[in-house]
């Protein structure tokens, strides 16, 4: 209903405070000093490349979370972002390493391949769901593992991989495929494709809120039966939503691959997909909310170095992430209930029911 600043901003604030309290307790049990720890976390942002790293990693999380959110909008639970981005990353880097193209074209080619592969991998659970009714949760869980297997197969030296030291990687993409970053000198370099994440966010918002497609998607998510009666082809929506989600997932790894690594190696980190789920939920599927969620998550991730520096076990970061997710949603609920009660009281007074209401 009405966009109420209090209802939007209060919950996350409460949640962060609650999470801080929880972690303080944990810290004090182990004999740490919470103030020092939190101080170190804040202070790190200004140091070295941390701020830039937060933005860079945040952009990756953002894309992953958008991919998840697209599915969520129609109650499709795409756990498979994990497998989709991994497979897309390796195939795109193999393809990108194998072709010679002029600069911008080369990059575009890689991005398109990545999106296509992500979409194709997401199409499997979509098609299984449409034609065979296979629950997408189970199929995407299975496909994540299978994607790992395929990636492992592709990266073998005898297939597409190259051995560099003790590490295997795809051939390095020629410079024409790279995306130049925005260098901030000693503060690091922001990946050029952070722009892609921003564009994806804007696109997501426009798509969901301003287009017929977004309307149909949300309608199917809210009530499949009502959507069908309204002429929405539910099966098509499942397919399209999954394809879009998969395509977005396919781009997840691109900012860092085209902005820094230029090759997919065994060191490529896993679990962006799962982080994406948490961030999407944290941001309540709203593009701006997700952006905050992604940056917060990245910030917490980076804190491990700073925390270690002051002798605090970095596991506290994971605890903090878990408690923030939980406290945010609990806080939203609590604020919602308070607002509701307040509204009820107000109505009581307005409509002039005799006595004042006992709160």
């Amino acid at each position: 209903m009405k966009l109420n600043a209090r209802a939007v901003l209060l919950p996350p604030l409460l949640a962060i405070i609650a999470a801080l309290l929880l972690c303080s307790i944990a810290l004090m049990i182990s004999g740490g000093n919470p103030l020092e720890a939190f101080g170190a976390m804040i202070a790190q942002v200004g140091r070295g490349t941390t701020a830039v790293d937060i933005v860079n990693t945040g952009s990756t999380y953002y894309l992953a979370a958008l991919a998840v959110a697209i599915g969520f909008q129609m109650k499709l639970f795409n756990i498979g972002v994990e497998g989709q981005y991994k497979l897309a990353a390796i195939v795109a880097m193999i393809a990108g390493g194998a072709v010679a193209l002029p600069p911008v074209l080369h990059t575009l080619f890689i991005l398109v391949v990545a999106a296509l592969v992500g979409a194709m991998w997401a199409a499997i659970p979509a098609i299984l769901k449409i034609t065979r009714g296979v629950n997408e949760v189970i199929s995407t869980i299975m496909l994540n593992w299978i994607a790992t297997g395929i990636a492992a197969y592709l990266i073998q030296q005898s297939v597409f991989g190259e051995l560099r030291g003790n590490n295997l990687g795809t051939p390095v993409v020629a410079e024409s495929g790279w995306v130049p970053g925005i260098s901030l000198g000693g503060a690091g370099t922001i990946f050029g494709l952070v722009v892609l994440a921003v564009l994806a966010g804007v696109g997501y918002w426009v798509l969901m809120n301003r287009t017929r497609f977004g309307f149909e998607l949300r309608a199917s998510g809210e009530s499949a039966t009502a959507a069908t009666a309204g002429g929405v082809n539910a099966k098509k929506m499942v397919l399209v939503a999954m394809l879009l989600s998969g395509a977005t997932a396919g781009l997840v790894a691109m900012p860092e691959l085209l902005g820094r690594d230029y090759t997919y190696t065994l060191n490529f980190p896993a679990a962006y997909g799962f982080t994406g789920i948490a961030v999407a939920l944290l941001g309540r599927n709203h593009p701006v909310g997700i952006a905050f969620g992604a940056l917060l998550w990245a910030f917490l991730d980076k804190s491990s170095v700073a925390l270690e520096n002051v002798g605090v076990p970095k596991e506290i970061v994971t605890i903090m992430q878990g408690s923030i997710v939980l406290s945010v949603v609990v806080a939203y609920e609590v604020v919602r209930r308070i607002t509701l009660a307040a509204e009820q009281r107000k109505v009581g007074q307005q409509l002039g029911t005799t006595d004042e209401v006992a709160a």
Partner: protein
Amino acid sequence: MSAVVDTPQSPDSAAFLAGPGPKRKLPGWSVGLLLVAAAIGALSTASYLTGVPQLTSSGTFQTAVQLAMPILLAGLGGLWAERAGVVNIGLEGMMIMGTWGGAWAGYQWGPWAGLVAAAVFGALGGLLHAIATVTFGVNHIVSGVAINLLGAGVTKYLSTLLFQPVSHNPRESPPVPKFDTFSMQPLGDWLAELENEQRVGISDVAGILKGLVTGVSPLTMLAILLVPITYLVLWRSRFGLRLRSCGENPVAAESLGVNVYLHKYAAVIVSGALAGLGGAALLLNPGQSGYLENQTNGRGYIGLAAMIFGNWRPTGLLGGAALFGYADGLQLRSGGGAVLALLYAAVLALGVVVIWQLWRRRWVATAVTVSGALILYWVYWSFNELPSQITTYLPHLVTLVVLAVSAQRLRPPAANGVEYRRG
């Protein structure tokens, strides 16, 4: 009478349905037994024809049991929660809590204490999930994701605090005493003899049975017992009826005086306890090691998948877990050759399906099945060994294929995942 309606497609169309209900079908358990028999038949035939005894060896089945237990227990956990209408994607986190608690108590007071502690620690995770989802109406998936994070974080943290001083390793517990195993003797020996005689069919069945009756730990027995217990409690008791009603239509349940919150709490806490036991099944059986960071390795998710696979029913879940355990055990123990033999078994099984489909005059389905079988046979014929990268994920592939092939009549609890507020 049958001139009118037999199996009503939509609820309304049954308005004038009277007398006999929908056409009598075989009871579920007998269908299950038939399927199991068919699978064993296909496996032993394939084992004979391809000369790969591992398909039906007792070792493979013993391994299958071992690998299936954590998944089964986690799945049972999922079943309890979802039957009460609470989606539990936090099984993984609860399982991790269970491994930690089990190791912590087991190390100090022995395996039984470990078992209890694993359940208690898992239940704590469940309690948190219940508080979040039931009391605060938090989206079940959000809460589950948070619990997975918390489970991982808290156990790491606690390990650094409590295990490191003893094990000198923040990621591991000190060795944990294990359960003893039991075997049904002399049945086990007799079966072993039979298996070693390498007689077609008989030896296969003997191998399978031997794998199931030897080297069984109390934890395994408990896990298997929990399947019928779950069935009896959820489907044959008053508590179970109330619990399931909360997953089907909580408003109706509440309107009949069922305390929905209470039952949901109970279900989710039991769910956590079961997931915790699943964690214990990773450390208290003989030959297993103590607590190890990340040792659950996604088994909670697989448990969830097995539960969906099993159509939210204990026996189906058992089937899903067994299938997964079997395929995983086979590929881990025997590698690519055995996997190819399994393909051969699948071709045989599809052959039976084709005959059945022809008999039912389902031409299109027959064509699809035949082409599937042909593809599998082609793979079997043209590869000497499948890439190990792929065979490692055989269990996942098998699960996916079985799901896609078997007709989907999944029936989740109607109010599963739906937030419920009183009043």
